[in-house]
């Protein structure tokens, strides 16, 4: 039973890590700020949820699991709020969102 839980937990942790990696690759490959934020938001959601679920399975049915669940809930509420602040700041700084596929550098000129 413990062995099966360990395997499921490792699968979740590995899948979460894979989504974090995808978020990183996307943030590098995407052409401008807003599209980079889309790629990075995969890290916020699937990455965080899967890694936390994997750690919760390691902790078992203890108080630590409830604390991890609370951390996950707060992460899922605060990270989009931070993204909104970042997007608003970018808009205020004059970075045009409707530049299509134009890269960051081209927008500076």
């Amino acid at each position: 039973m413990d062995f099966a839980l360990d395997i499921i937990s490792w699968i979740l942790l590995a899948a979460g890590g894979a989504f974090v990696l995808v978020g990183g690759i996307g943030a590098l490959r995407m052409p401008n700020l807003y599209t980079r934020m889309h790629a990075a938001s995969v890290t916020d959601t699937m990455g965080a949820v899967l890694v936390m679920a994997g750690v919760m399975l390691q902790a078992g049915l203890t108080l630590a699991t409830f604390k991890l669940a609370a951390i996950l809930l707060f992460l899922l509420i605060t990270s989009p709020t931070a993204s909104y602040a970042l997007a608003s700041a970018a808009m205020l700084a004059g970075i045009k969102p409707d530049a299509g596929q134009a890269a960051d550098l081209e927008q500076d000129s």
Partner: protein
Amino acid sequence: MSQSPSAESGPDARTSRLPRIIVLAVLLAAAWLLWSGFFKPLLLALGAFSCLLVLYLSHRMHLFDTDIFAPRFTLRLLRFWGWLVREIIRSSLEVTRLVLSPKMDISPTVAEFDSKCPHPVDRAILGNSIILTPGTLTLRIDGQHFVVHALTESGARDIVNGEMDLRVSQLRGG
């Protein structure tokens, strides 16, 4: 949060205040017990005192006059989260496919729409839900008017079609 307290007061609001107080009390007590993990009398008494103080302050702030703590709102919120999780999984896989495909087939689009949500809390939930879903990003909320950035054109069309807007606006009504 500029809704005046008198908007919902009346004989009906007075009787429906007790379930809301119970919902918040249960949440606070659960938070204290599960996060402290100590069950000594002194700490339990401090926890009970803190919970009662927060309940009193919430009452003073007229938080129980809005239906954020209404039991039916809590149930609907849980059902909405279930739907949101499915959406997040679907669009995460979509964004992952786009990021990993050799020729990134993205079509960044800015879309604008007017939300059906009258209350600021609903609009905050909707804005955060749009950002939480990979591939869509709330750029600005101006009253009921939303400006949204989407990674693909079809993603922008899904937002403007407003299924998420409809689901959020149904959280509190009725």
